[in-house]
């Protein structure tokens, strides 16, 4: 359980946030300049807010009213910075072990396990200057975990990496989430990362909390979608690989039926999260015939909310999951779409990028 209540003014910007998040990965999500990093720095103790209270699993790190301000080195929060911040004069091994002398518990087995989990064995004697961007990220992650923290803070740890490096690192983060079981506060403005990693999403815009809840609910909420921007809005649904087809497509079972998507690395039985961009969903009142799109799913329109310009967002119930679609106001009027109406959602297999599946 993570409790964060903050009020802080900083050169014309006011941050005013009050949120409680359950265990797991909490993503602070929102556009650049929304105040996400300010929140994380306040949790780490690198910033002293005007007013606020921060507690992790009941332990108070900050309470301005009670006059409590734990200095950063007593907070035991592992911070993974966007720019890695490895110590240039120390070897990878010394970097990894830096925090251990300050924490009482933790065994050599942990070190072996984390080094193996992050694939760092061959790097231990190297200096940070000779590492690639992806390797630096992994060392920074290992260093934070090995300091035996009560929680992890990650401030856009992947933002400095190109797409190839990101897809190289993301699986490590997923393993971390599933194996290390620490509460994680994850800052990102990339929906693909949030969709794949987050248990809880807190949407922050202009220093305010716009919404908080399970990832699948927040990302499919049409009233929050405008804050994500029209290119990024899109819901997350869960699925499970059923089979690999001979032509390279994967058959994936979702709450609304099977879909076919290009996901060559999927193993049958593997659970997945799929992110479907709102702009990639087409609606049809009757089940269409003679269409090239492979995926036609029965859905029920739950909500229709106005979006930017001549368009609306629609939240579609797909079994017990949700899709988000973005259509023109004109199409909605022409088809006579209303809330509660059953219709068909059409998703081109090729519109789902591989970074949106995982």
């Amino acid at each position, binding site marked *: 359980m993570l409790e964060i209540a903050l009020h802080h003014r900083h050169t014309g910007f006011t941050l005013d946030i009050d949120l409680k998040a359950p265990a797991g990965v909490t993503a602070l999500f929102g556009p650049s300049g929304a105040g996400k990093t300010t929140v994380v720095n306040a949790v780490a103790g690198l910033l002293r807010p005007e007013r606020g209270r921060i507690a992790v699993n009941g332990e108070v790190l900050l309470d301005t009213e009670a006059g409590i301000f734990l200095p950063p*080195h007593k907070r035991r929060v592992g911070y993974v910075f966007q720019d890695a911040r490895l110590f240039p*004069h120390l070897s990878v091994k010394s970097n990894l072990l*830096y925090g251990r002398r300050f924490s009482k518990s933790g065994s050599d087995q942990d070190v072996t396990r984390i080094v193996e989990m992050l694939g760092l064995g061959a790097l231990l004697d*190297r*200096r940070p200057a000779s590492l690639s961007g992806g390797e630096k990220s992994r060392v920074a992650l290992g260093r934070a975990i090995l300091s035996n923290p009560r929680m992890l803070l990650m401030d856009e740890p992947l933002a400095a990496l190109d797409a190839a490096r990101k897809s190289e690192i993301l699986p490590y983060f997923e393993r971390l989430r599933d194996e290390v079981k620490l509460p994680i506060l994850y800052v990102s403005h990339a929906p693909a990362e949030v969709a794949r990693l987050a248990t809880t999403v807190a949407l922050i815009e202009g220093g305010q909390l716009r919404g908080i809840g399970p990832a699948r609910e927040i990302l499919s909420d049409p009233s929050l979608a405008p804050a994500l921007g029209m290119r990024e809005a899109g819901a997350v649904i869960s699925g499970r690989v059923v089979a690999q087809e001979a032509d390279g497509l994967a058959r994936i079972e979702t709450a609304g039926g099977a879909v076919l998507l290009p996901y060559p690395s999927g193993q049958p039985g593997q659970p997945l999260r799929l992110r479907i961009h709102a702009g990639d969903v087409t609606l049809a009142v009757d089940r269409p015939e003679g269409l090239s799109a492979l995926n036609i799913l029965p859905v029920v329109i739950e909500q229709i909310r106005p979006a930017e310009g001549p368009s609306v967002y629609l939240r579609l119930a797909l079994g017990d999951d949700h899709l988000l679609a973005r259509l023109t106001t004109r199409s909605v009027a022409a088809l006579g779409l209303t809330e509660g109406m059953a219709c068909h959602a059409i998703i081109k297999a090729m519109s789902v990028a591989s970074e949106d599946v995982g």
Partner: protein
Amino acid sequence: MSWLSPSDWQAVLLSLKVAGWATALSLPPGVFIAYALARWQFPGRAVVNGLVHLPLILPPVVTGYLLLIGFAPNGVIGAALAKLGITLAFTWRGAALAAAVMAFPLMVRAIRLAIEAVDPKLEQAASTLGASRLWVFGTITLPLIVPGILAGAITAFAKAMGEFGATITFVSNIPGQTQTLPLAIYSQLQVPGGEASAARLAAVSVTLALGALLVSEWLARRIAARIAGGRG
């Protein structure tokens, strides 16, 4: 160096002793003040900065005069030190103090530049890993500024070797006691037939200064390479 007369030799050794002590004793406060000026915002920061730099801009004879007022046996600080049995005026210790005061601004400048070049984000990262301020300084800041400290120490040493005005004003020019290399050169030039001795001492002076500079450059480059270095 048998071509140096015993009294020349004495001046060289005295200079090395004075400059060595001046440098060694001013290093800890030098690092502390450089750190404070580089990293902390505190009331009176400008005053501290001004005081540190004062010897750089004052005529050395004025610095020597102020030291004499403060540290003479009847001076404010001198009287207190006299009770402890420490005499500074007209002793080699006084010469070391004068050299240290004159060299201090150069040392602080070099170390401060090195500290300012250390990314505070690294220090923040260390603190989130559980390191207290002192640990952060000892394990992150200090190792990263070693080249700067070395540069500051060598510059200060060279400056201390060459100090003249404040020394002669504060501790006078007593052979074997306070007559350092520059003072000896000056004295030789005052007596007929002393030019040859002055030239030899000047040569020693140039050699020591150049040697110190070369050694410091070499060490700084080695350490910088080790800090930023690739493997190993």
